[in-house]
């Protein structure tokens, strides 16, 4: 064995908050890697600012620092922990950049820390455009003709030489942030300016545009002996031009003959060899569809979104193997975890087809441009596995949870053929459905190919699906047709809609003709070897491989599907912990989920994994086979909760809180009745179904009111309405999100928002802690800075909150988790809402209080009381620390999206700042969220009239610290009148330079802007905010956040930032 005996303690850098381009895949890879390293007896020190991850659990690493991912933090941790090695390839681009900085500064050498896995030289060669180009030239690998530009003039010269269109790629940015395709000089000026600004090294690459070529990816592994293998190749449905993270991707490649396949495979191996990667590497190629011409697009010498997808698509655990390689093992020494007979030095072969579809956040951002290009916009992804491409595609469509069960988009029905023809030219998130509609209308695959350049093979598969739709609608439903429909992934409900037969009739025919799904194993080897991996997908075939044991009681856990705004990685954290807790109680665990990026879909988490869509029919098939003794829905977010009713109808008991209680909490009238009974006040409100009813309710309650749909997560479609016009606009927006549930209209109370997570056993509740939000009510809780413990809430109010929580838990008969949001105003506590399920805050509260919230909840399912499990009822003693959760946004990736905070959640991720004092914790949280804290700088302040009084102390505070304040007429006059000097700036369009010019000048450090209602006002504010975000300037839209910022600025130079190992919090003395 060639394991390096000198490696005893390794620092692993995580990827930080979830943002677009960097999602849960790094938690999956990081968790797998930590486990792989620890099982070798090596100590793991983890640094990651993201508290919602599983990798930051004390079960996963020996030392866990939930600290801002900055060079300074890592230095402190290294000095404190004295590791011998650092592994930088598991935390995405961010971690690579940090590690290279540490290496270049000489710090690692000085502290005798070795970079393992992949060396700094390799990282530089892969990441630095010029070095990379040279490396590729050495081994005769073609890159698209390109040149680096460090200023705009150079960029323009290069483009002239190469010829438009050109692709602009900034160096050292994430997800292609700031890049794009420029078709002419004007466009290049705008894209390249932004790209130069975003790049850490102020470089952009101007490259020949090869859009329309096939985009092919290889996942490659290499060890120190030079052994190389490819894990998987993948082909993008969308040709080059759409970021691979925004493309529909299929594995393995479908349209390449062996000659093309081997040409690219050899190229990938040559590249990883030249770069000297030791571990995993992703290589992206563009292949001319009409020749053997190809070029290398990009190389990532680390685990990535693609490697996570490749791992899930093949069963080959890339992160695990990469970690073993980093420890010195070679591929021929690492056993294949799936077959247990063969080794990691082989190439997986698939006997099914995998389709990934991105999950986009456009439902959250009505204004954002939906166009897809080189800038990634998706927040997550789903994967479908089937023996047919059609089946895999249809499965992943329904995994998206966008009310689409097939390729039939009813919204397109009303468009004319010409309009559909025009839509074919638009590359956006809805293109797949437009393609299918065009085929239905009689466009030929060839015509569509000429417009879209999508390979005819893929289009032919859409033709097959559309033909089945047509046959179902027009032909007799015989066995062959029904089989084909099921094989191609049609749900019974879709077959019913098309054929006019009832679902019951269809199910009867399926029984009669024995058309039932069987479950096949993902085994890395196409059944060549006997494998024991419990990783299954459904297929229509003749042999079922999922053998159900009957000796042990078993529980089905429903996962949370794709990562999206409002339902993020936190729910995967809870699902995984529930699986572990169930396993510890002796149950067989079965998980169903469809997100390839997550830990929960790793094949060794549950006893069995069904990688399937989460619709009632898909669940029914698994239930019919497995006959579980119970199902768990309270950890999988709204995705799982929505299935509770259907699962109960299948005769499977919902463990913990019943479906009836879930409904009682969601149903306005039932919930009001419970609140009345418990004598708990809430803001007055009404349930309505129509716009007219909404207007009547709003006028009766008095403006402002909150308008929102029921049964959604993340405040989707929630608005604050100040007038009848607002209500009309808001109801219109809600109706676009196809709702069969009623709409809620509530009186808006502007107070302090407080949140509680409780565990309830049916008798009483344990409350691990009370969290207070920095932003006042009206800003979605997921977008608020949340502070534990609640520092500004009086003991008296806290007692009331605890009392209300215990009463509500009893009344709702909660067994398991309960999340309640309160408003405190004028010494009154109101309930906003109660959700009898896991919440976004469970992971971080579990970690900072060291209370195993999820395992306790699972214990209650089986009749254990909380005292029996060691916890007294009521509020738990506070820890002597402050933990501040700060939201992180991805606005710069979403052109057009408004960045102002409101009742609808917009953040994609979060970071935690943990410290002994409030100021230190807040400064850490700001750093973690990527805000560079400075004592003084230049700020633009423009606020609406009603906020002027309130902004005064903030402006004064900043001025006293030495900040230069820029403001437009109204705010400027007001501040000057109050003795605060400002630099007066023109409003937009009122003469150059105007406020946008100031923003883009590069001199501004902060923008404080509060949005006003009203179209015209808001347009200016919107432009200010958008430009600030696109220029990379922090933009605060809530004065509460601005206040917090001021506090930090006041203390940043006098506060020493410590580093805290979160696994030691249990030793932090309690206040009491």
């Amino acid at each position: 064995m060639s394991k390096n005996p000198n490696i005893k303690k390794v620092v692993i850098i995580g990827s930080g908050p979830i943002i677009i381009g960097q999602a849960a895949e790094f938690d999956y890879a990081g968790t797998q890697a930590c486990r792989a390293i620890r099982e070798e007896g090596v100590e793991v020190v983890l640094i990651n600012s993201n508290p919602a991850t599983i990798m930051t659990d004390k079960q996963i690493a020996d030392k866990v620092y939930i600290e801002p991912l900055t060079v300074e933090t890592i230095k402190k941790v290294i000095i404190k922990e004295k590791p011998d090695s650092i592994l930088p390839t598991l935390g995405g681009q961010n971690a690579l950049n940090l590690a290279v900085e540490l290496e270049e500064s000489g710090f690692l050498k000085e502290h005798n820390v070795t970079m393992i896995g992949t060396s700094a030289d390799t990282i530089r060669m892969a990441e630095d455009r010029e070095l990379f180009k040279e490396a590729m030239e050495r081994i005769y690998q073609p890159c698209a003709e390109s040149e680096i530009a460090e200023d705009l003039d150079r960029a323009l010269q290069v483009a002239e030489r190469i010829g438009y269109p050109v692709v602009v790629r900034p160096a050292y940015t994430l997800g292609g942030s700031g890049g794009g395709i420029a078709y002419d000089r004007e466009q290049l000026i705008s894209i390249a300016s932004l790209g130069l600004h975003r790049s850490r090294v102020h470089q952009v690459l101007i490259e020949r545009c090869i859009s329309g070529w096939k985009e092919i990816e290889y996942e490659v592994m290499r060890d120190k002996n030079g052994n190389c293998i490819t894990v998987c190749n993948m082909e993008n449905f969308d040709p080059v031009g759409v970021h691979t993270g925004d493309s529909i991707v299929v594995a393995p490649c479908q349209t390449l003959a062996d000659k093309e396949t081997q040409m690219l495979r050899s190229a990938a191996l040559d590249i990883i060899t030249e770069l000297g990667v030791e571990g995993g590497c992703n290589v992206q190629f563009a292949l001319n569809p009409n020749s053997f011409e190809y070029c290398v697009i990009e190389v990532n010498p680390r685990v990535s979104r693609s490697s996570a997808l490749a791992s899930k698509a093949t069963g080959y655990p890339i992160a695990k193997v990469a970690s073993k390689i980093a420890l010195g093992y070679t591929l021929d020494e690492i056993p294949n975890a799936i077959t247990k007979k063969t080794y990691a030095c082989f190439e997986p072969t698939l006997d099914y087809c995998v389709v990934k579809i991105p999950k986009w956040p456009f439902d959250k951002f009505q204004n954002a441009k939906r166009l897809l290009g080189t800038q990634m916009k998706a927040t997550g992804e789903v994967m479908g596995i089937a023996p047919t491409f059609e089946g895999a595609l249809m499965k992943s469509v329904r995994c998206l949870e966008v009310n689409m069960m097939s390729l039939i988009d009813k919204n397109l029905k009303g468009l004319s053929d010409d309009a559909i023809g025009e839509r074919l030219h638009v590359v956006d998130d809805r293109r797949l459905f437009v393609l299918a509609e065009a085929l239905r209308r009689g466009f030929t695959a060839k015509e569509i190919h000429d417009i879209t350049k999508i390979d005819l093979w893929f289009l032919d598969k859409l033709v097959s699906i559309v033909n089945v739709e047509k046959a179902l609608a027009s032909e007799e439903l015989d066995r062959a047709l029904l089989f084909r429909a099921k094989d191609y992934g049609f749900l019974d409900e879709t077959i019913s809609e098309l054929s006019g037969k009832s679902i019951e009739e269809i199910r009867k025919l399926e029984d009669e003709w024995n058309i039932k799904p069987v479950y096949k194993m993902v085994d890395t080897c196409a059944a060549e070897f006997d494998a024991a991996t419990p990783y299954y997908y459904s297929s229509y075939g003749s042999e079922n491989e999922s053998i159900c044991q009957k000796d042990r009681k078993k529980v089905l856990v429903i996962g949370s599907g794709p990562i999206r705004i409002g339902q993020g990685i936190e729910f995967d954290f809870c699902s995984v912990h529930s699986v572990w807790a169930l396993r510890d109680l002796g149950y067989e665990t079965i998980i169903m989920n469809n997100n390839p990026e997550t830990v929960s879909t790793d094949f060794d988490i549950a006893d069995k994994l069904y990688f399937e869509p989460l619709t009632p029919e898909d669940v029914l098939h698994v239930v019919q086979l497995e006959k579980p003794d119970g199902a768990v829905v309270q950890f999988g977010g709204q995705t799982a909760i929505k299935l509770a009713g259907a699962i109960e109808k299948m005769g499977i008991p919902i463990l913990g809180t019943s479906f009836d209680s879930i409904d009682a909490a969601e149903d306005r009238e039932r919930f009001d009745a419970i609140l009345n009974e418990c004598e708990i006040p809430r803001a007055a409100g009404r349930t309505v179904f129509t716009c007219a009813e909404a207007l009547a309710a709003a006028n009766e309650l008095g403006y402002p009111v909150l308008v929102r749909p029921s049964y959604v997560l993340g405040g989707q479609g929630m608005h604050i309405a100040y007038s009848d016009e607002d209500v009309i606009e808001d109801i219109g927006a809600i109706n676009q999100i196809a709702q069969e549930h009623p709409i809620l209209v509530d009186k808006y109370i502007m107070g302090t928002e407080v949140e509680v997570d409780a565990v309830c056993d049916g008798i009483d509740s344990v409350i691990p802690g009370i969290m207070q939000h920095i932003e006042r009510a009206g800003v979605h809780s997921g977008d608020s800075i949340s502070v534990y413990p609640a520092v500004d809430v009086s003991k008296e109010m806290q007692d009331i909150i605890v009392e209300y929580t215990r009463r509500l838990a009893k009344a709702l008969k909660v067994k398991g988790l309960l999340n309640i949001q309160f408003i405190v105003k004028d010494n009154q506590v109101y309930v906003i809402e109660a959700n009898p399920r896991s919440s976004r805050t469970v992971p971080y509260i579990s970690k900072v209080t060291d209370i195993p919230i999820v395992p306790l909840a699972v214990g209650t399912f089986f009749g254990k009381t909380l005292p029996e499990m060691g916890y007294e009822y009521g509020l738990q003693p506070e820890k002597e620390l402050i933990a501040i959760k700060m939201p992180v946004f991805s606005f710069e990736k979403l052109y057009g999206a408004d960045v102002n905070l409101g009742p609808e959640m917009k953040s994609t991720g979060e970071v935690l700042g943990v410290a002994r004092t409030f100021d230190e914790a807040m400064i850490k949280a700001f750093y973690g969220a990527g805000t560079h804290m400075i004592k003084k700088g230049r700020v633009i302040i423009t606020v609406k009239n009603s906020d002027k009084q309130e902004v005064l102390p903030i402006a004064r505070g900043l001025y006293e610290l030495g900040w230069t304040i820029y403001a437009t007429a109204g705010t400027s006059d007001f501040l000057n009148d109050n003795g605060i000097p400002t630099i007066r700036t023109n409003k937009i369009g009122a003469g150059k330079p105007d406020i946008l010019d100031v923003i883009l000048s590069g001199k501004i450090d902060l923008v404080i802007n509060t949005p006003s209602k009203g179209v015209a006002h808001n347009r200016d504010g919107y432009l200010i905010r958008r430009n600030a975000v696109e220029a990379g300037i922090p933009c605060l839209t809530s004065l509460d956040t601005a206040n917090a910022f001021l506090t930090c600025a006041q203390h940043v130079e006098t506060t020493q930032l410590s580093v805290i190992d979160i696994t030691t919090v249990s030793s932090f003395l309690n206040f009491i």
Partner: protein
Amino acid sequence: MKALLMLENGMTFEGTGFGYEHDVLCEVVFNSAMCGYTELLTDPSYAGQGVVMTFPLIGNYGICYDDAESTKPWLGAFIVRSVSGIASNFRCDVDLDTYLKQNKVPGMCGIDTRALTRVLRESGTMRGMISYGEAIDLAAMKKQIDAFVLKSYVPEVSDREGKVYGDGPIRVALADYGVKHNIIRCLVKRGCTVKCFPYDASMEEILAFSPDGVMLSNGPGDPQACVKSIEELKRLYNHGLPIFGICLGHQLMALAQGFDTYKLKYGHRGINHPVKDLEANRVYITSQNHGFVVNADTVDPAVADVSFVSMNDGSVEGLRYKNGRVFTVQFHPEASSGPLDTGFLFDKFIDLMGGSRI
């Protein structure tokens, strides 16, 4: 048309016919490659076999004649889960269905190929029969299968015309047991003139060409059936010419030296097979297609060393003979289909022949 596959254990699989829909008896084997079916169809080593593709989507890029490994498809039958409705590739000459019809190769689709593969893995390679039509007599099929005797296809696939390829300075005599043309291309591109000799050519016939070295090709079936070839190889070995053997050629040379071969339960057929180069301590991914293998226990260490072993089952994947002139491999360094990782073995052969690399 309806099609039915029956295995010698009586198991049946129902599906749909495509290609040339005529009843056929064959030895049923599976291949786990995800692409490269053109090469596979035209690889003479598959002569007479019914090949099951474990990858379910076949025919996607049609047939490119340039990718053919011989003049026509040789296999007995082609069994897949589904055949692509469209052939999409800029080089495509004809679609799979038409190609099989034109070349009289029976095809069958619409079956659970994974289930069939698992049967072959557990019970081993079996004889089988595919029948087409509505009225199929199962008992008659079973009888035919039981009566079916596997034969050697080497005489059929070996080239008797003595074709010559290339015009380079290095002269290679190729013993053609059913050669894949990429072996010839690999030699020609390295500066060889390659002349094909039939499987039963005598040492004298070969020497008359005054070759710098001898290439022993791949080929179908049981090596022990090639009695004449083994005899000639014994003599050729002693003559001292550089010899490079691939697949069947490797097995025949082993038999010529008195080592033994045996049949694997279900063979190695795919393009993802790891082999370890024991000397260099390196692992390569190789293309493989063999049902028989050299028995390691019978390799006389005075005569040869095992140079490569399979990482999957430890079986012999290469031999290096002590005379320093002869080396053979069980896998396919010429790839086609499959990884190009071991192409360097041709360079080694050129070096042995005293040639210089081009």
